[in-house]
């Protein structure tokens, strides 16, 4: 599974939203209406999925799926 799909899969299961609602270039706050507490959970879930450390300061409710993909890619590339 590619990184983007894994991100969407993780978030859709966590937030109980449809995969197609997670738009690539729309902030999570606007696409699925996440709140900041849900983002704390989302960051932990993504850390587990990719087995890497992520910061709630870099992945926020204003991030898009594309933004998260870039961050995850850079972490995986540098590890």
């Amino acid at each position, binding site marked *: 599974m590619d990184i983007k799909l894994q991100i969407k899969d993780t978030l859709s299961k966590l*937030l*109980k*939203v449809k995969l197609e609602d997670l738009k690539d270039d729309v902030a999570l706050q606007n696409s699925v209406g996440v709140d900041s*507490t849900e983002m704390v*959970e989302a960051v932990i879930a993504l850390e587990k999925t990719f087995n890497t450390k992520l910061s709630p300061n870099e992945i926020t409710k204003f991030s898009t799926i594309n933004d998260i993909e870039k961050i995850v890619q850079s972490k995986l590339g540098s590890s």
Partner: protein
Amino acid sequence: MEKVAVTGLGVVSPSGIGRRQFWANIKAGRSFIKKITRFDASRYPSHIAGQIDELEKYSHVSERLLKKIDVFSHMALIAAELALQDAGIDISKEDPNLVGIFLGNALGGWLYAETELRDLYIEGREGVSPYMASAWFPAAPQGQISIYYGIKGFSKTVVADRASSLMAIGYAKKTLNKNKLKLILAGGMEAPVTPYALLCCNTYGGLSTDNEHPEMAYRPFDKKRNGFVIGEGAGIITLESIASAKKRAAPISAYISGYATTCDGVDRIHPAADGRELARAINLALLEAKVSREEIDYICLDGLAVDIWDNSEAEAIKMVFGQRAKEIPVSCPKTMFGNLLGASGALDLIVTILAMEHNLIPPTLNLDEPSPEGLNYVAAKAREVKINKALVISRGRGGINSVLVVEKA
């Protein structure tokens, strides 16, 4: 102080969810007190309760929201929705600044808190849900309902032990009387059937330990009383000014005309034995309602089934009503579904309103030999009586006395 109109009833209880199912079971005098099955409670001194088993069936709440909230918020969300439906209110068409919410709760949401605390000790910080911080505390249901409906007017959660919800309804009335709001959701919720909450209730004392006879365990004002039985659920009503209710041709279920509260202030746990402060609360509520002692047709009792509580409650009624205390029908319907602690007063008010509507006083289960004597107890079977005006009494730990005067619509 003007009367306010009750336009919608929302009830989530062991005796049923929704006013129709609830009333059918109440008037039939069915007991819903059983051994606790949610977890192994067999080693607790008291392990019986009024439990709700099929909450999900009645739920309109999304899975996404459900995982962020404790069951006491879930119950309150359902009760609020039922009350709004009953009142025929589409809240999205109301001015959110003129809608408020006043709820009462005693314990908080322990099922959520216990689970997360266990995870904290086993898995460490990262094992704890970030919703823990907002899921457990007593005002959480008020917040969740406000967010769900976009309520933006003055709102409050009252924490005053078992008197919490009647007090919340009393304050809602006072707030409506100030003409600052148009509509208030008022009531309370409690979910004590969890391992830790049940332990606290047991430690507090006063619970019946007649575990082998769950249906017969809760027997207030009976010679063989041995404590109360807890129950879970929520009761929420919609309150509006009479003018506002009439303007939209709302179905008015009843009027609340008086409310008062007093405190005994003598002990951490027990009330004062003389019932004097409860009597004062009854008199103050009647005064606010401009209702005379002769007009009261029914009293819905607090009935803790603990000697000092039952005796002082009866004493207060005798003090206020004198010779009439022998005539006014009184009963304690919570013997059927358990004492909902912080939500008990709201449930009692809803039962009283339904009793008025159907001219039928609900029974007090297990009242075989009255003690103390001198009150006109409605025992095993419901009694047909025309009720125009009634009192609801709700009392909390250490002697917090709350009294509401209700009138037929």
